[in-house]
């Protein structure tokens, strides 16, 4: 009787831990999907020069930056697409996620260069920081991984 009871308890523990693991995996997978979706949608919005659309995928701070300066850097984006999003090595810290993104951004002839960006196609590598907001993620920072 006692043996049976112990076996049952053991099986129950195993079940609970397996379910827990799979939940965790599912939750990580979900996070990866959400992060990927936010970044790709942000790129599509940048290409459309639509500040309202862009605002859905960025924090208030970045929105303010784009709207207050009415930056021509946004208006001159001809194309913008992800080359790779390093989801396997993303850093998860509480509600913050950091991920390295390689993307291509093409600027029109009207673009006035900033930093190392030039007119035409640019290969850009940046570290994106995303924060959870209302069940999805918004971009709160984008910076060179070197400095």
């Amino acid at each position, binding site marked *: 009787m006692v043996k049976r009871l112990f076996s049952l308890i053991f099986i129950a523990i195993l079940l609970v831990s397996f379910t827990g693991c799979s939940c965790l995996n599912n939750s990580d997978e979900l996070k990866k999907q959400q992060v990927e979706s936010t970044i790709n949608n942000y790129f599509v919005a940048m290409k459309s020069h639509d500040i309202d659309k862009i605002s859905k995928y960025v924090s208030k701070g970045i929105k303010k*930056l784009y709207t207050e*300066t009415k930056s021509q*850097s946004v208006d001159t984006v001809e194309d913008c697409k992800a080359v790779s999003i390093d989801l396997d090595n993303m850093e998860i810290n509480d509600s913050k996620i950091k991920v390295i993104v390689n993307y291509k951004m093409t600027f029109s002839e009207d673009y*006035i*260069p*900033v*930093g*190392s*960006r030039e007119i035409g196609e640019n290969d850009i590598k940046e570290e994106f920081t995303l924060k959870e907001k209302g069940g999805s993620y918004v971009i709160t920072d984008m910076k*060179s991984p070197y400095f």
Partner: protein
Amino acid sequence: MKKSIKKLLCVIMSTLMLTLSSSIAFAEETEDINISKNIDKAKEKIEEFISTNMKKYDSSSKFKVSYKGIIKEDNSFYDYARKLAILTNNRYKSFDTLKVEKIKYNIEYGDIKYENGNYIINASVYEEKKYAGQEEPGFLCTEHTFTVEEDSGGFYIKNDVTDDFVDEYLQNSAEKYGVTIDDMIEYDKTCIKVEKSEKAKLANSAVVEDDLGTASPNSTVKKYKFSYDNMYKYAAKYNKASPKKKSNRNPNYANYDKLGGDCTNYVSQILKAGGAPLDNTGANQWYYYSDSNRSTSWTSVNNLFKYLKNNESIGPQGYKIKSDEVYIASKGDIIQLKFKGEKQYSHSLWIIRHQTSTTSCTRIACHSSDRWDEPLDNIPCCARRWIKLTGYGKKVS
């Protein structure tokens, strides 16, 4: 009877064992105490050596250095250390800007080993020097590995391997090219002459108004020296990391933090604060009126470099310093960085202060990830481009 003999033998054996082990322990303890005392004596000798070394910064004609009693005179290191001090002193007494008013230093000891009769002692030496005319002192940290030997009851420095720029250069050159310290002393005398004449030229071109003759016949363009104080005040006012900041960014300019980087925008603003007028005429231009009405040179790393290099008229002017002449750089100049895997330079920094001998003491300020008064070495990069500012052209009626 037999039993009592056995007992007695046991007692004797135990006593013997105890005596033996306690005497071994005593000998070990004595040895430990001796080593510890010797380490203290070795450290005293290091402190004496460093204290003597500090004399090399004496820019007066009284300079004299003697390592007698610190290094054995028959050791080749005696001659090397003495000449190294002379080499440094030649530099310090040749330039007014290197006049040291106050000096403080501190020694922090690291690992200590005892090998083949020598004490190998690692130490970091922190120097704080206040140069004449400088508001704040400059810092320098060098890592040392001292070899101290004990001979006839006395302790002597046998060798000192450091990461000091000059020392490393000499050690490598001696190994690779057979360059001796005497060659280096002679070579540096020539370098000092060249540097002096370069600095004099720069000072003259900056202070004396120089008609560049590139403007219209009715007007002239004169060259002026940048005001470092105004540059510094502005740089400190608009930098998140600065203790004197008024605001993170100047609201009169767009912020390019998330749009390619604000570093060159920040450097351009500093140049303007230093006195440089906007330049919106000719082939080379440098100006900012609004985000959509600005020159490429205002915000682009490479275009600012091209502009400074080519501009000979109104606006800021400069040139790229050769990689082996970084000593020409000074506070107020610019450094641009290229990172691993990048095709072109992508970051601009402004120099708050600069020390010829070590980049770890060159302090910089920058946007977008704001840094203030940070050692240049904190930003690991692939290549550095040093830009010397020679002044700025300004139209006078």
